[in-house]
């Protein structure tokens, strides 16, 4: 009798109620063909740093705010490995990585917060949104303006650019020769993100 009771108790312990599936919010997957570059300048010349390889398949999840006609993102970020930047000038590349503290903060993150609902946007029309850019351990919010380009099979591209300052992230642009040779404060982030719906 005790043995039966013991076995019954063990069975109860291993019983788990069936997991109720949580409905997934709509999501977009960032495709590997996405592009991102940084334009900067020094008091000598201009330079552009390209991402050599964007390998991560980041997913952006959103819910629709019908009243505001916006998409609100949840835990959605595009992660860029800073070591993958190539400025095509070896000294600028290494100086930029050092300035961005890539050894301690290896990623540039663009956290999507909100965006105009694309259902209401016509081809070629500008889309507004907000992002948090996380760089070298600091986060700053920016208002963004994108261009949406629809492609086949529910795919689309989000293109945009934003001028930011090193000082926005408490960073000091590199300078040499007592500051007489220096990188300027302003840098421009240009991006073309390729999206496909999650699950397609």
């Amino acid at each position, binding site marked *: 009798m005790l043995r039966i009771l013991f076995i019954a108790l063990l069975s109860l312990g291993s019983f788990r109620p069936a997991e109720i599936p949580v409905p997934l919010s709509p999501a977009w997957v960032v495709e590997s063909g996405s592009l991102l570059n940084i334009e900067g300048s020094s008091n*000598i*010349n201009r330079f552009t740093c390209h991402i050599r390889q964007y390998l991560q398949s980041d997913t952006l999840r959103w819910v629709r705010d019908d009243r505001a006609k916006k998409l609100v993102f949840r835990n959605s970020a595009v992660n860029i490995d800073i070591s993958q930047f190539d400025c095509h000038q070896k*000294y600028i590349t290494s100086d930029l990585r050092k300035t961005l503290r890539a050894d301690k903060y290896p990623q540039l993150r663009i956290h999507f917060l909100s965006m105009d609902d694309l259902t209401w946007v016509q081809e070629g029309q500008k889309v507004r949104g907000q992002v948090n850019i996380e760089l070298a351990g600091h986060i700053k919010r920016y208002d963004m303006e994108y261009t949406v380009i629809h492609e086949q099979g529910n795919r689309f591209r989000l293109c945009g650019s934003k001028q930011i300052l090193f000082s926005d992230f408490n960073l000091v642009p590199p*300078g040499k*020769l*007592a500051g007489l*040779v220096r990188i300027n404060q302003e840098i421009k982030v240009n991006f073309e993100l390729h999206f496909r719906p999650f699950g397609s």
Partner: protein
Amino acid sequence: MKKIVLSVLVAGIVLLAMSLLLIFIEIKFFPGLVEEYFSPVFRWSDTSTDWLFYTHPFVVAFALKWFWERYKDLFKGGDLLRAFEVALVYGIIAMVPVLWVTYSAIDISLGMVLTWLAYGILQAFVAGYIFSKINP
């Protein structure tokens, strides 16, 4: 003594102005060479060390003034000729050997080393001319 101090100060100020002017000229006409200053062998700009750069003309002026006072009687002729001789001596005795070993040890281009040689010789020429004028 007054003349010595005055000539060092004047030379220092003129050499400082000249160094800034030459940097801007180099940026304008030889940007590829200036880009090399982004190399990691060069110190990052920092308040704790930047002042060394801005005071180096006075160090050079002081050193050349000591040399001038010691050996000025050997340099004959007009102000320009005397300045030229000082520049030549300084270039051969001080600049060439130091830059020779610098080039052998540090990963910098020959072009950059040659700009430093020209800069040093020009510094000595300008300082020598000022000393010859103020304190012959």
